[in-house]
């Protein structure tokens, strides 16, 4: 891909020569930030306790509950697009514009005659960013004569976390197979119900790839298999396999939060530790390589629902854990990415079949080997 090659080879030979210039610019920045704060107000509204369910608190990690600045800016309508882009260049993390015209203009300090020509932007800034500086630089870069009026508030992190959790509703994957949030009671008590609190790990059953993998599992597990869930996320596949009758499940992930979420979900479904093992795999940056305490050729079914790049890089690794004749399922890939994955895995797999939902695919096949397992 052109863009990728370009970025890799970009020479940074200017770096050392312009260090001196860069340092001399710094003092200017500090100087302008000490101007009187008459033009904006900061009201910190930190919410300390959480009124939402107690289970959400065990998933509030520092990075997710990080504070942020929420800034409302009144911007002239005709420069909305360039101004939004400029804000993002000069330090804003995100810029959002409501489609509804704001009727409530009590925040706008300007007269009501201008209100119809202005639009309100909600922007999020990192907590240490110089908001006034960014806004004035953005305005200058597109030639605005004056700096737009704005108001800064401390972001309410609990608010969006709660809204996100509220979205998770019971999902029916197939006839008599439901994924149910921890805080809801199962709509169909007699069905196979997997109780989940995914926290911030991936896997609520709503995503097409999760559905594809669950359906694959349902068709494969007859009873007594050893299952490996590579990239387990919330643990949904590992738990589902056990519910379908597998003898044991192992879940591997590089994210410690995923492991935490998966073990919480195992407990929610009354799964004893002997049946579900969880391992934290070292991520690419660690130098110790990919040593997990798992033996090769140990599993009857292996599923890896991750993304294209990991699935390509770890192909040998993933396949090595499967017994000859075992079924391997690969997902998290888009249909346009399938040819690459197929090419990578076909030396090792036969009877390859593809299942599709929308743009997403799940590829499964059996591992080639001398001893075909007939159960």
């Amino acid at each position: 891909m052109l863009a990728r090659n370009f970025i890799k080879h970009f020479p940074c030979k200017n770096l050392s020569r312009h260090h001196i210039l860069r340092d001399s610019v710094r003092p200017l920045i500090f100087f302008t930030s000490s101007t009187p704060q008459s033009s904006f107000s900061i009201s910190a509204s930190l919410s300390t306790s959480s009124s939402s369910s107690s289970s959400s608190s065990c998933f509030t990690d520092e990075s997710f509950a990080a504070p942020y600045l929420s800034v409302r800016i009144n911007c002239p309508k005709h420069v909305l697009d360039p101004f939004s882009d400029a804000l993002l260049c000069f330090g804003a993390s995100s810029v959002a514009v409501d489609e509804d015209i704001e009727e409530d203009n009590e925040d706008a300090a300007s007269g009501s005659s201008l209100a119809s020509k202005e639009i309100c932007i909600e922007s999020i800034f990192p907590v240490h960013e110089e908001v006034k500086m960014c806004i004035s630089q953005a305005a200058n870069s597109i030639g605005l004569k004056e700096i737009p009026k704005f108001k800064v508030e401390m972001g309410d992190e609990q608010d969006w976390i709660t809204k996100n959790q509220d979205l998770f509703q019971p999902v029916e994957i197939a006839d008599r197979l439901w994924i149910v949030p921890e805080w809801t009671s199962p709509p169909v008590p007699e069905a196979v119900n997997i109780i989940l609190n995914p926290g911030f790990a991936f896997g609520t059953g709503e995503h097409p790839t999760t559905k594809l993998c669950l359906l694959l599992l349902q068709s494969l597990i007859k009873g007594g298999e050893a299952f490996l869930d590579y990239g387990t996320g919330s643990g949904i596949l590992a738990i589902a396999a056990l519910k379908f009758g597998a003898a044991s499940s192992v879940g591997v992930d590089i994210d410690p939060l995923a492991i935490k979420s998966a073990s919480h979900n195992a407990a929610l479904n009354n799964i004893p530790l002997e049946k579900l093992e969880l391992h934290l795999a070292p991520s690419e940056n660690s130098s110790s390589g990919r040593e997990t305490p798992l033996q090769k050729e140990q599993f009857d079914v292996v599923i890896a629902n991750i993304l294209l790049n990991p699935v390509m890089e770890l192909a040998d690794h993933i396949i090595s854990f499967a017994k000859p004749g075992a079924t391997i399922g690969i997902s998290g890939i888009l249909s346009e990415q399938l040819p690459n994955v197929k090419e990578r895995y076909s030396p090792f797999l036969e009877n390859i079949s593809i299942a599709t939902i929308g743009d997403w695919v799940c590829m499964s096949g059996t591992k080639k080997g001398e001893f075909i397992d007939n159960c």
Partner: protein
Amino acid sequence: MAAAKEILLRRPVAATIRLTVPAGGARPAPPVGPALGQYRLNLMAFCKDFNARTQKYKPDTPMAVTITAFKDNSFEFTVKSPSVSWYVKKAAGVDKGSTRPGHLTVTTLSVRHVYEIAKVKQTDPFCQYMPLESICKSIIGTANSMGIKIVQDLE
């Protein structure tokens, strides 16, 4: 305004959100979390979708994402390569532009840099039919507005 809304009559739009996310690195933490969470969009679905579609870029390249949030909490998004100013800053090796563009020059770039950036930008969905020269002019304009001068050759 009502007429304009009828044109988009597939689904009513609630908001348009723009943000910068590292390629392959979307996580439901700030800035993605609060920005999308405000409009009740499914964070994990966005992260998985975005990460899958940006696999072909070098990891952690800041991608410009525009999300259209619909009133029924569904959404669509488009992904563009990093903004011109990001490329310009990276090429020049600086973190921020000048505080007084037009008066104070932070650093300089050569015409060859501009050409390289233009070639990358031409792969963007927007710019595919624009002549390279127009893209170059726009890049020079952005660089100037950041206090970065373009010279023929770097000494």
